[in-house]
């Protein structure tokens, strides 16, 4: 059973006005990793989502031509907090649900003052699965923003909500300026900090690959460090719990389908996005899972991460 058909991964992209959310989303649409993406926009943007990109890359075979131009950008309305909390977002997600069979994932752009953590709650409504909260931060302005009496609390709240942070405009900074920005973020969040331009693989993660055999492998890639591990023997649930607690610095995403010795007849899905990891039991064990009989895990880390640290981490399982 392909659970992706039922539950679309929903990635929340937050960050203050001008941080570069739209640029990032255009980057994802430009290089969608062969995936079909619905983007929900909720911002008075300075620049628009590039509709030409949407038209060009409609993703996988068999999905092409099923949707018209702009077919998967849905605009949301800004909310009136006092007056109504009506159903704007729910209606937009209902529209996404009706096109779910044509989609691989959903990206929700939160407004420049929106609370990404609250928006991420929608990923737990029927039809979706949480795919993390990415908060984009303007590295050249974040310290000024955090000190601003009007918006400091808003920006700090967004950073605190993040599973992953993406630092943009690093090129505008003196070398020590960037590290100061990173220090400011570290005070507010334990999330890994990515730097722009970002490799979309880091944002979408990877699926554990079917048919990988042998020892710990890795995919060569210029921008990030990847390790995958097929499992031959069921893993005690307690080992999974330990594993999630000792995640090395720099791990952006990890995903695995694991057979546990506690529940060998079920699939246990582990998923980690930056700072948050979930372990859920999802459906029966079918035997078609990737790996060497007990599943597989894959992890991706920011450039510069020691591969040995990843190997050691996955080796716990």
């Amino acid at each position, binding site marked *: 059973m392909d659970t992706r058909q039922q539950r679309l991964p929903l990635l929340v992209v937050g960050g203050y*006005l001008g941080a570069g959310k739209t640029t990032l989303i255009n980057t994802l649409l430009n290089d969608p990793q062969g995936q079909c993406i619905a983007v929900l926009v909720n911002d008075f943007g300075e620049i628009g989502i590039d509709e030409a990109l949407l038209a060009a890359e409609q993703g996988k075979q068999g999905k092409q031509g099923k949707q018209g131009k702009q077919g998967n950008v849905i*605009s949301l309305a800004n909310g009136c907090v006092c007056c109504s909390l009506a159903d704007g977002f729910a209606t937009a997600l209902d529209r996404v649900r009706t096109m779910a069979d044509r989609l691989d994932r959903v990206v929700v752009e939160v407004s420049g003052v929106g609370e990404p953590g609250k928006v991420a709650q929608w990923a737990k409504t029927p039809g979706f699965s949480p795919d993390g909260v990415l908060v984009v931060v303007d590295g050249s302005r974040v310290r000024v923003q955090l000190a601003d009496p009007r918006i400091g609390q808003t920006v700090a709240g967004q950073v605190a909500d993040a599973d992953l942070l993406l630092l943009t405009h690093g090129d505008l900074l003196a070398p020590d300026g960037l590290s100061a920005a990173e220090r400011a973020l570290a005070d507010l969040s334990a999330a890994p900090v990515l730097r722009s331009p970002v490799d979309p693989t880091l944002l979408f993660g990877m699926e554990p690959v079917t048919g990988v055999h042998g020892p710990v492998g890795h995919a060569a890639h210029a921008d990030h460090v990847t390790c995958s591990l097929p499992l031959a023997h069921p893993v005690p649930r307690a080992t999974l719990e330990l594993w999630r607690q000792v995640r090395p610095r720099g791990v952006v995403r990890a995903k695995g389908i694991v057979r546990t010795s506690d529940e060998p007849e079920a699939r246990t899905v582990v998923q980690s996005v930056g700072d948050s990891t979930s372990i859920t039991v999802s459906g029966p064990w079918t035997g078609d899972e990737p790996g060497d009989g007990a599943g597989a895990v894959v992890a991706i880390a920011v450039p510069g991460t020691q591969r040995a640290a990843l190997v050691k981490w996955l080796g716990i399982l």
Partner: protein
Amino acid sequence: MASPTTIYTAAAIHTLDPSRPDAKAVAVRDGRVLAVGSVEELQRIEGATVDGSLERFTLLPGFVEAHCHAMAGGMWLHTYCGYFDRQGPDGRVWSGCRSMDDVIERLLKADARMTSEGAGPDEPLLAWGLDPIYFPGERLVARHLDRVSTARPILVMHASLHLATVNKALMEAEGITPDTDMDGVPKDGSGWPIGELREPAAMSLAGTAFRKFWGRTKSEDSLRNFGNKARNTGITTLTDLGNRESAKESEIERFRWVVDQEGFPARVSVFHMPVPGTPEALEQAAADVVASRGASSAKLRFGHVKLVIDGSIQGWTARLRWPHYLDGGNGIWVVPPEQVTDILRPYHEAGLLIHVHCNGDEAVDVWLEAVESLLAETPRIDHRHTVQHCQLTSPDQYRRIAALGMCANLFSNHTFFWGDQHASSTVGPDRAARMNSARTALDLGVPLSMHSDAPVTPLGSLHVAWSAVNRLTATGVLLGPDERISVAEAIHAITLGAAHQLKMDDEIGSISPHKHADLAILEADPFAIDPAGLRDVPVWGTMLGGRLFPAD
């Protein structure tokens, strides 16, 4: 040959027209005021007929509600469970639910009525208005609602609209189980959801019931209720203050279909609410709003703009100047403060009237800065840009509002509905006394109106005026006595003051020759009674464009 003229005599007429403030008769021709004066004066009009049917009543200009929402009518399609007595659009008075048992009792009756009317067991029972702030220490949960029905799904929307309680039947039908893992779904000791759904994401788990709750508020019946509720409270002009679809053909048609019917008892001004987009998209939206004016009629107006930039004080989400809330926190922005000018520029440049929701004083600063920028770029005369709610506005801000040619529309009902909570919990007694400071606004020359923000508080201009005149909380505490205004000032605010902010004061707001014959028909004279009784003045009904609409 002239159209027929009818002269209505009355016990008293307060025209709000400064050159003829008091009169005894009003002559109506073609739906408009032909003349106002004494009976003898008007009898000189050739061919006029005298109609004495209103002679025991006091006539005022029809009230103008410059900040409410059309969905207020839709709430009455659900079962009322609020704490205060409230009159429905059909005239029925729903007694307040003063205890949780009252709530259950109310729902049991509603369930029985649904069953007797043939509703299937799956048809959800929807209720609204529950305000647990009045039941300290108690919490409505599924277990209580299961006493009403174990078969029919039940959803009770709380007054804040941020929270709903549902029963077990609903949770079973929608798959809300111990596996449901969401911040807004609290659970009991055994891991079962207790039936509270907090914030919209969790509330949307109520599936069919959630969609029906909001879907009904967009129906034609909802709009009709809205009009009937206006008629019952003496209001002849309503607003739908902030409609994202208002430039769309289908939404324009919905309003035209209902409001332009002769039997619909009110005028409605529908404000456009900007939808997020690029600068080019906003340019286009502004052009669409200008074009939507073409769909306006004598009863229906399109073409003004409303933006929301902060939250609410009772929800701790309004943006306040230091020292913020008593707990030290501050609220939220709905749009980035430095973007307000950019969002509104196309609308300002298109010559449109803009109202901005600012509950907190820090939000007011942002809106005033935006108006300064917009006027520096594109000077406009008589723009009447308005601060909506304007609740914590300080005298320095009121001076600036006046200097910028802006208006203020105060949420004076807050003193009654949440004044006690504001003094004790949100901002403390000193700033609670400053809330909705109508006296200061008037003294500093700010054109003033006051509103209910229905459905946030009940539609009813006399209650709004009473609140500004008396400033009493629900427990009877006098909050900010120095900010009280006179009955005359309050009546001005709910008639001509509001009409001015809607740019309709050339056609409504006073009983003057040339204007529409829109009247509030009252069974007592608000100027002759003890001001403490202002909210209790019985409303006989209204006249709209010369046609009588008795209240239900």
